[in-house]
């Protein structure tokens, strides 16, 4: 049996080589599909790694609370766009924030209230400028450093803001903007600090602080009809060993606060790093669709070529049967050939996928990740495609009547 398998492999190699161009063209569909998958996975792993590195750099003792129940299925997080629920009002309130900060071993808790609206001074900031309302703890939890001036603290006037370097350049045309005033939603604020440039638009706060404006939670509430709309609460524990206990306590406390409803999720470690950027979702969604379509088309191509191959070798099938081949011998010969096309396309796709990912990453702030999981997915997808679409042709080959096959002309 082992020798037979080896023989099938040699056979497949010979037969694919003798139709080289045809084999390569057939592999192309699988190659494109696997390349797309590899690119998305390598880049999304890269994005996740950026965030998890940040969490690690902060000591790893960070947890975040987000509104809405979390999905446990990682693929849906990758392939599904944001649902309507994600745009609904946040379920986290100031009461929750106070309750959470009182839990044992929680050293700091910083809310993140993200508002939209225009930011204007000498010139107007871009439309999507994030306006973040938070507490002074945000600086330590998220490791925000000021370049000049100071961060918010409990004593400063509520009419003051801290802005990112890029935002400073956007609205004032300079990085030196301490003491200058700007208007947010028609209300004027004084700049008391400019943040150090961070250059990581992808982080677990989902805010690019380089172009953000940070104000106190009180001011944020005033701009939002007196209501705190908290999108995220960042928690820091006194040590990493207490983090698990804290998460359990938070869950208990918040469920009690929310009348038994589990309409929030507490994330730590890896979970935080799952990229949630909407643009990323859109790109990943499109790429996943491209991958699925090209795999389907590639698979149909394999099936088509294998049917041609079976027809071309009808006489050979008859001869082999006359020489003692069983139906399953014939079937496995053809399955292995289609499998070889699939895997060949897969390996090509894996390599091209990484070339693409590295190419794209020159425009991004992070590098793609090479890990065995992605290799397994690429190989798995190509193996499944090769086998699945080779089944029917192989079945046709195995079922051929030896007499009719021998009568066939070459």
């Amino acid at each position: 049996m082992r020798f037979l398998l080896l023989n099938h492999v040699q056979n497949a190699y010979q037969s694919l080589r003798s139709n080289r161009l045809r084999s390569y063209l057939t592999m192309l569909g699988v190659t494109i599909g696997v390349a797309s998958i590899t690119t998305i996975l390598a880049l999304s792993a890269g994005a996740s790694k950026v965030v998890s590195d940040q969490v690690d750099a902060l000591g790893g003792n960070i947890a975040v609370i987000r509104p809405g129940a979390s999905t446990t299925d990682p693929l849906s997080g990758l392939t599904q766009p944001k649902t309507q629920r994600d745009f609904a009002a946040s379920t986290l309130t100031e009461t929750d924030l106070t309750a959470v900060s009182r839990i044992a071993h929680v050293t700091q808790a910083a809310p993140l209230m993200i508002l939209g609206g225009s930011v204007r001074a000498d010139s107007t900031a871009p439309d999507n400028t994030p306006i973040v309302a938070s507490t002074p703890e945000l600086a330590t939890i998220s490791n925000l450093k000021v370049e000049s001036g100071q961060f918010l603290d409990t004593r400063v006037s509520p009419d003051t803001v801290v802005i990112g370097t890029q935002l400073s350049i956007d609205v004032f045309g300079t990085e030196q903007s301490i003491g200058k005033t700007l208007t947010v939603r028609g209300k004027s604020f004084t700049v008391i600090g400019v943040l150090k440039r961070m250059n990581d638009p992808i982080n677990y706060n989902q805010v690019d602080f380089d172009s953000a404006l940070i104000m106190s939670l009180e001011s944020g509430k005033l701009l939002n009809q007196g209501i705190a709309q908290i999108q995220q609460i960042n928690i820091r524990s006194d040590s990493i060993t207490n983090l698990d206990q804290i998460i359990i306590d938070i869950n208990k406390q918040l469920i009690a606060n929310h009348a038994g409803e589990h309409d929030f999720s507490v994330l730590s470690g890896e979970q935080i790093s799952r990229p949630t950027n909407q643009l990323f979702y859109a790109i990943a969604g499109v790429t996943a669709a491209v991958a699925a379509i090209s795999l389907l088309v590639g698979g149909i191509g394999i099936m088509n070529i294998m049917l041609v191959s079976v027809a071309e070798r009808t006489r050979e099938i008859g001869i082999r049967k006359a020489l003692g081949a069983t139906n399953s011998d014939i079937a496995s010969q053809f399955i292995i050939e289609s499998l070889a096309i699939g895997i060949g396309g897969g390996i090509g796709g894996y390599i091209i996928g990484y070339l693409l990912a590295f190419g794209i990453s020159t425009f991004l702030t992070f590098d793609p990740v090479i890990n065995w999981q992605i290799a397994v997915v690429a190989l798995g997808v190509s193996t499944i495609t090769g086998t699945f679409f080779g089944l029917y042709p192989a079945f046709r080959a195995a079922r051929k009547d030896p007499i009719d096959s021998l009568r066939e002309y070459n």
Partner: protein
Amino acid sequence: MAKIKTPPVIELHNLKKRFGIGDAEHFALDGMDLTIKKGEFIAIMGPSGCGKTTLLNILGLLDHSTDGEYKLDGQEVSTLGPRRQARIRSQQIGFIFQSFNLISRLSVIENVALPLTYKGVSHTKRLELASDMLRTFHLGEREYYMPYQLSGGQTQRVAIARALVNEPSIILADEPTGNLDSRSSHIIMEELSDLHKRGNTIIMVTHNPRLTSYASRVITMLDGRVDTDTMVLPQLTTTPAKRPLGTTTKKKAKRKKPAKAKKVTS
């Protein structure tokens, strides 16, 4: 016939093979009765379309009869599963075809080694055995030739080497010399004759009456039945026997018909 003690390798009783249904119904074999003993060299003759190929296909388990009995080594073949039948084809039966039927994209040695694949022999051992077999057919230097680089006679010798590489006890040859000139034909017949002397059972279909002289028994068929069945004396095998010696075992032989048929087909 009762005098011969060797047990029958093949026993056919009232074997029928029908093709088509309804108006197109046609019996290619219409009640074959035949007993073949171990070590016989049988030449089957008969007009085109009388069912010779159909008979060989059924004997070789490539096809199945519609009705009647076929016992191979005392075992009724219709009771055997497809996997078992493939095993028998692999280990007990060697096929030689008129059109050689080498696989054109495989080299000579790979073609000869092919039957060993389905017997589970390792790659190196396969090539070794195939090489030995080719050498006995004086094709040692042609091992890595492709089939299209060989002459007709050489191709058929490769095909015979392939049929023999699994050491089958029964050789089925359907007009093995049909595509060859008379010189090559005699070389092939010498090879078959050799095999016969070594104890193989050979069943060969031929249109050439001269070649029946190599056989130990000549059967003529007509309309899917045995017409005449003649034993040939072994010492006369070297000279072409125009006139069959021995006893005719079948009755109701219309003397003129087979002769006429031979003229039509040769």
